[in-house]
């Protein structure tokens, strides 16, 4: 049984604009479920989902878990600490074991680029990539896009700049592909040492200075800067990074327009983003978190079944036929 998205959600790069819109549209009614007193519908009752987290991530894991539970799925969390993963079990063995346990879906977070694809190629269960190395983090990209769409409506022609460590960011890649597919203009900005070589071939603008990005953009998606980058010699210091590339109140005040501020979290306040910006009136950082649950519910729901042809969705509301 193939869903409208195919078996898995591994990346936004291979999706069509229609598939992305389908996920976003499906997320809309799910937003409402989280507002109910009883935040639960039986759509995935009896489905078993494993959340396989080889990297710690409180936020993404909790978001997925809420999404699963609100759809009534049975979930098991496997964190890398204390599991056989730590004992040197290979990913392929993990895959075989999951397959043997007849799991319906696997949500995987892994430090290696391509790990989700690796798993998806080897098991029949639906696989959702919750972040693989520095490759993609499709549900994060989708929730960022949903948040932008909530604010802007149609994203065609909207100018969105991704700021920071694009080189090591799976969030950046998913955002770039997803936004471009919906017709947005996308730019990246950061020290050249933290931009991937060949980034201009993605069809994005590149700003060397954050002031230029602010001058241009209608929204900034500010990436987390990891401490290890300094240790690995990509930038001299966090202090200098904040001075040169930090999103500060002072810089934004000089912008020709109000700029929407997104951040995939967790934030380093005072490094890539100042607190008064993160907590300021144009920040939609908490909307992102709320939308995260709705988007993940939509993805889980769509992958759980459904008909292959998108066109069918239109026909499904044909008159009278009781469902």
């Amino acid at each position, binding site marked *: 049984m193939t869903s409208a998205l195919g078996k898995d959600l591994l990346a936004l790069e291979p999706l069509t604009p229609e598939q992305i819109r389908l996920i976003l549209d499906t997320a809309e009614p799910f937003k409402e479920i989280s507002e109910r007193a009883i935040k639960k519908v039986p759509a995935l009752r009896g489905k078993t989902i494993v959340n396989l987290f080889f990297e710690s991530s409180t936020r993404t894991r909790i978001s997925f878990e809420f999404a699963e539970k609100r759809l009534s799925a049975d979930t098991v969390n496997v964190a890398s600490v204390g599991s056989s993963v730590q004992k040197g079990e290979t990913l392929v063995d993990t895959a075989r074991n999951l397959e043997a346990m007849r799991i319906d879906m696997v949500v995987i977070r892994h430090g290696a680029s391509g790990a989700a694809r*690796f798993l998806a190629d080897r098991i029949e269960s639906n696989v959702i990539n919750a972040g693989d190395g520095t490759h993609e983090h499709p549900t994060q990209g989708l929730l960022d896009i949903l948040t932008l769409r909530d604010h802007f409506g149609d994203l065609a022609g909207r100018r969105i700049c991704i700021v920071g460590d694009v080189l090591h960011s799976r969030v950046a890649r998913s955002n770039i592909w997803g936004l471009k597919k919906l017709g947005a203009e996308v730019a990246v900005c950061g020290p050249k040492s933290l931009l991937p070589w060949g980034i201009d*071939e*993605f069809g994005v603008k590149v700003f060397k200075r954050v002031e230029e990005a602010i001058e241009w953009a209608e929204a900034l998606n500010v990436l987390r800067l990891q401490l290890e980058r300094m240790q690995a010699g990509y930038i001299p210091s966090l202090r200098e990074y904040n001075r040169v590339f930090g999103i500060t109140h002072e810089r934004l005040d000089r912008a020709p327009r109000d700029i929407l501020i997104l951040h995939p979290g967790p934030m380093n306040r005072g490094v890539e983003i100042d607190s008064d910006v993160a907590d300021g009136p144009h920040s939609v950082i908490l909307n992102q978190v709320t939308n995260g649950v709705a988007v993940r519910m939509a993805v889980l729901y769509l992958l759980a079944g459904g008909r292959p042809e998108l066109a069918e969705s239109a026909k499904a509301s044909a008159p009278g036929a009781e469902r």
Partner: protein
Amino acid sequence: MTEARDILLSGGRVIDPSAGRDETTDVLLRDGKVEAIGRSLGAPEGAEVLDCSGLLVSPGFIDVHCHLREPGREDVETVATGARAAAAGGFTAVCAMPNTEPVTDNQAAVGFIIRQGLRAAAARVYPIGAISVGQRGEALAEFGEMVGAGAVAVSDDGKPVVSAHLMRTALEYAQAFDIPVIDHCEEPTLAKGGSMNEGMMSARLGLRGIPAEAEEIMVIRDILLARRTGGHVHLAHMSTAGSVELIRWGKERGINVTAEVTPHHLTLTEAAVGGFDTSAKMNPPLRTEADVEALREALRDGTIDLVATDHAPHHYDAKEREFADAPFGIVGLETALALVVTELVEKGIIDFPTLVDRMSTRPAKLFHLEGGSLAQGSTADVTVFDPAREWVVDPSKFLSKGRNTPYAGDQLRGRAVYTIVGGRVVFRLEE
């Protein structure tokens, strides 16, 4: 060893660039030597007659770069399985890289490989000794002792020679023994952590890239050191258009630099990595279309001297893992000939005499090895191959223990039919 029968190779297209020969004729092999060459030789009493009509008869192919994993990883490959795989691929001789466990960095270790090669009685196996003790890049290994035991070159392959001083010393010291110093060109701080070519594809996949400059910086360093020392530097597995330019620059100035290219760098680009396919993970990495074009042209015009496989077998499930953690390399002995025929000869980039030159004549000459010629009296190492034979790559049928190849399922043309070493047929293609 029992005395081999005479062999008459009858009616094949005989190509021997060392003698400028390309004609349909007969070759008679006797007592491990080429006895005679000419039309209608007729079979002597008791001779085995091999009908070579429609086939190409060439001096035996020589692979100057392969990893046979013995000693240390006999589960992955042994000298014997590697030598048999080589014979099946049409190679009459291979040079085994010293990155074994322990490293082949001394006389005894070289002798061991020689003995294992003789026992295998398939393709000849020539050991390559390490440049530095333990391939640690510090103290020079005993070149003289190793050459005395049968080593034909030195290399720290698998690792680059990081120290320019050590490389210089090796190039100087090796001259006493007239052996090439082979370098694996990789600037380690640029290549660190990389698992594929740095470019659009690595940016897309979120994999750390190895820039072309990681190779080219070492290529020019080695060329300049060869110029300074007058030593013979041989550059392993060239992968970039920039390297080709630098080698051309060196050769134009008469610097003693030679270079090799693998069949995979001649036929595949980074696009093969697109689905995180670990069978396309090599070091140096697969590069771009422009690089492949430049390498093909360089092989054609002789800037790159020869084709070498960099045959790198791995345990069958070693590549069943995350891309960044999977080992580099593929097996190559049994697909090399067909890839060169299918991708270069059939596409009109090189002709068969050039193929023979790059796979037999030049390797023999540059590494001072027996073979590489069918002149009367030369060693009877001969490869007979069918240039039109179509076959589908099926790794389960490899004689190598390694199965890791990105070419599985590909339909190729060109296959060894008889591989003859010292006048003995060591491989016959089963119908």
